[in-house]
């Protein structure tokens, strides 16, 4: 069968081979490469103009590599543009959100997959609603409540909503992983005298490390890039995150693109580094979220 089919498909290809097949192959490749260049160009352009002065950016050297490298743009973005502060804020918000999301979603998943009770399936479906609820739904009430409890203009105003919105995805990923851990382990630990808490923290949690990485990356990307909550819930300079900070900086340096480019590179490089080392895992987490949602 297999041999036959290969023969036939080869026969087909041979019929079509020759100039027309080659031409179409070349055309396909040209489109693929052109689109790749279009995807890479903005990032390339950002990094090159972050190292140029106005004379180069606005002059003859619009898209070439910098002739002299202006690292001072980075220094200015960091100090005058306060990117150091925004970076720290973004980092703190991301790390705290990741910790909360991981802990809450691992615990909830444990309760819904390993503990025995009647409504656990329904509860899981209830959490999965979170995959489709847009953040717009929450913005007015959250703003009102946060201002009432005097939490506007603070880091919790960001990391609490971020972790809540990352929960559904966290539970979805954790459920997949926890299903793969054999029940025998729970039973062995139980026979050794472990209670539910000991089973969770000593047996299950250490085995969840791959899920932790996936959930962590996903949550990181959501928090690091989020704009709407970050703009609305925070108007204080001291707690701005990178996206809001860059918006401000770009407005401030309208006539000088170098420092803005540097600020954007500072915000983008961590993401790109994570992506280079974990591209497969990141892509898989996006696929997992979509297939279920």
């Amino acid at each position: 069968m297999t041999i036959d089919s290969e023969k036939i498909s080869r026969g087909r290809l041979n019929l079509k081979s020759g100039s027309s097949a080659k031409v179409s192959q070349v055309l396909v490749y040209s489109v693929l490469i052109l689109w790749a260049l279009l995807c890479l160009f903005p990032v390339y352009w950002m990094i090159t103009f972050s190292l140029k002065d106005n004379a180069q950016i606005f002059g003859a050297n619009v898209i070439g590599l910098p002739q002299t490298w202006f690292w001072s743009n980075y220094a200015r973005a960091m100090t005058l543009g306060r990117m150091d502060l925004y970076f720290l804020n973004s980092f703190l918000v991301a790390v705290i959100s990741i910790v909360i999301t991981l802990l809450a979603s691992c615990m909830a998943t444990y309760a819904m997959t390993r503990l025995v009770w009647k409504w656990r399936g329904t509860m899981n479906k209830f959490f999965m609603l979170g995959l489709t609820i847009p953040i717009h739904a929450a913005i007015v009430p959250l703003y009102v409540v946060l201002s009432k409890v005097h939490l506007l203009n603070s880091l919790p105003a960001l990391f609490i909503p971020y972790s809540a919105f990352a929960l559904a995805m966290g539970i979805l990923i954790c459920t997949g992983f926890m299903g793969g851990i054999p029940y025998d382990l729970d039973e062995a630990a139980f026979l050794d005298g472990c209670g539910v808490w000991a089973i969770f923290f000593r047996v299950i949690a250490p085995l969840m490390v791959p899920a932790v990485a996936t959930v962590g990356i996903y949550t990181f990307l959501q928090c690091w890039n989020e704009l709407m909550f970050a703009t609305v819930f925070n108007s204080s300079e001291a707690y701005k995150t990178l996206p809001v900070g860059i918006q401000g900086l770009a407005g401030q340096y309208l006539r000088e693109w170098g420092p803005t480019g540097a600020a954007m590179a500072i915000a983008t490089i961590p993401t790109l580094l994570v992506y280079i080392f974990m591209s497969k895992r990141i892509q898989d987490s996006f696929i997992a979220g979509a297939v279920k949602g």
Partner: protein
Amino acid sequence: MRRTLGYRVNIILFLLPALFLFVAVLIAPIVMSTYYSFFNWNGLSTPKWIAFKNYVELFTSKSISFLPALKNSLLLALFSVLIQLPFALWLALKLSKHLPGERAFISIYFMPVLISTVVIGQLWLKIYNPDYGVLNVALRAMGLESWTRSWLGDKTTALGAAFIPTLWQYVGYHMLLMYAGVKGVPRELLEAGMLDGCTEGQLNRHIIIPYIKPILRVSVIFAVTGSLKSFDLIYVLTNGGPVHATEVPSTLMLNLLFLRNRYGMGSTIAVMLILLCFLFALLINLAFKEE
């Protein structure tokens, strides 16, 4: 062991952190938004019950211009479904045929999805810049001076110029989903098709595309609901301007909330957005079932 695992206090304690966050930040606000949408309220005064008047005003008032904003986001949805998704599908089909460099192409195409929309918006702002932007510089270099314009400032081009980065950014996302789908088509099906003498085009049309329909459905739903909710890039590029030419429901909502202090009306838009997202998801599901 079953008894220990069914111990109520433990179940509640394990669920508590997630359940509390989820209900407090997602579920309760939906209920509250719906409630606010029946009031005339500026955030400070006592809210005044006005029943459905916000909804009536939303659809009839010219000064709020909700319908034009909705039309813009539906137009984006249309472009997304008619241009972005077919292109993503084409990429996915080509890349899944063991082309050399397959992984590299996928990784490059997906990269824009991960970059902050503020960064992408600011970069496109600079690409579109009337004086120094790459686009106009390139047009001038080609001797097409008359084609240059202030792309985002001109009422006739602003909407198109604001859509392009959005469509560009998410091609890779849809491509990735579809690629994963195509890779999941069983080998036997493809072999059977080849045995029947299918060409590549026929294989795509009669075997692969019908097989990955569930994923195409997800992509269409994401593209449409994503367009309805679109905010970040529009906010950075034009914030709805010039003169509301690129307004979408989300920019309108923030405008009403924080510039005009109309909390009731802002909530009404939020509720409409949720309803529209669910409605369109339902319709798309039905359309895919019909076929």
